[in-house]
């Protein structure tokens, strides 16, 4: 039951994009078309789920065990970068079709702050191994929902008459603000 709560909390109530402002760069940069947005969301969800589990293992069995918590950020970013690299190689070997779809988006995930943010938030909340994975998966699904909705709106936005100064990122952020308002409707939905 707690796992379901963590999942819903990470994906909807405390959506990473709309409440923590994590992953804004790909959210603004990659949300021009719905198909690319979904691919990006899927790739990110995959990496985030793995990150949730692996950073927990690193934190518990290496950083805590040897008492070297000050190496946390260096260790995490190396783990995430190599994880992304590893996932890229694995997908290329096992499923060329999926690699074709996700290929170019994979390296970009390393600099997605949502991934590192997820690892830091999971530690802050004292989740255990399984909960960290659920949290990572939920956060990834939340990111996918956000970027897909945004892409859908932006596809329609092309046909509207936006004032000159507001064209481009400015109007995208305005739409994001309205979406954040809508997502505020989930707050108080559940608390953990």
């Amino acid at each position, binding site marked *: 039951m707690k796992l379901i709560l963590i999942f819903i909390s990470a994906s909807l109530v405390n959506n990473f994009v709309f409440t923590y402002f994590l992953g804004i760069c790909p959210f603004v940069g990659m949300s021009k078309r719905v198909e690319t947005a979904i691919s990006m969301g899927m790739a990110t969800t995959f990496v985030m789920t793995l990150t949730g589990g692996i950073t927990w293992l690193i934190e518990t069995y290496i950083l805590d065990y040897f008492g070297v918590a000050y190496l946390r950020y260096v260790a995490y*970013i190396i783990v995430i970068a190599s994880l992304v690299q590893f996932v890229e190689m694995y997908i290329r070997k096992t499923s060329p079709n999926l690699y074709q779809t996700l290929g170019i988006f994979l390296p970009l995930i390393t*600099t997605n702050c949502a991934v590192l943010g997820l690892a830091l938030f999971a530690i802050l909340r004292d989740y255990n191994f399984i909960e960290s994975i659920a949290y990572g998966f939920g956060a990834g699904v939340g990111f996918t929902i956000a970027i897909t909705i945004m892409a859908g709106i932006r596809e329609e936005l092309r046909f509207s008459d936006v004032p000159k100064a507001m064209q481009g990122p400015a109007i995208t*952020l305005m739409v*994001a603000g*309205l979406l954040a308002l809508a997502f505020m409707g989930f707050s108080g939905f559940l608390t953990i």
Partner: protein
Amino acid sequence: MELKDDLKRGLWDQNPMFRLLIGLCPTLAVTNSVINGLSMGLATFFVLVSSSTIISIIKKWIPAQVRLASYVVIIATFVTMADMFLAGYFPVISKALGPYVPLIVVNCLVLGRAETFASKNPVPNAVADAVGMGLGFTWGLVLLGAIREIMGSGRLFSIQLLGNWFQPWLIMVLPAGAFFTLSITLGVINHISGKKGEAKHQH
């Protein structure tokens, strides 16, 4: 002359926040008050200047294949220092900024300047560029923080600025207000510059 150009670039023409649109995550997350925005700006400034300097000094010895990993490790080291400094001397601010200080590691601004500028230019230029970019980022954060704090609570630097007649706009300190403030500020700056609001780089 060239040094001055490198310094000035980040302040307006290529302001990281309003022109290049990089490093937006902390921009939106910590600008709910001026003091948070200022602290975040200074922390980023420190990391940016230190890492650009070091990377520019040792750029000859970093093999091209592992350069990004090396940059990230250098940046993460300075971020750890900044984080410990804040936690040690300013625990209240450190608590308010929370995980957004460690997230400077993946701030596209820091890695972006390392990759596009510090790794290709001599040390004085790299420092000038980093100082300019850092200041440009900081004034952006302070501006957004000021707008949101005044409208959201009628205060500035936690000092009551507007009288009792003012009904605070709660929305401005909530997440949605962050998006609105940045969006409108961008629009105003685009209007002043008379250019179309296209990002030159999108990360």
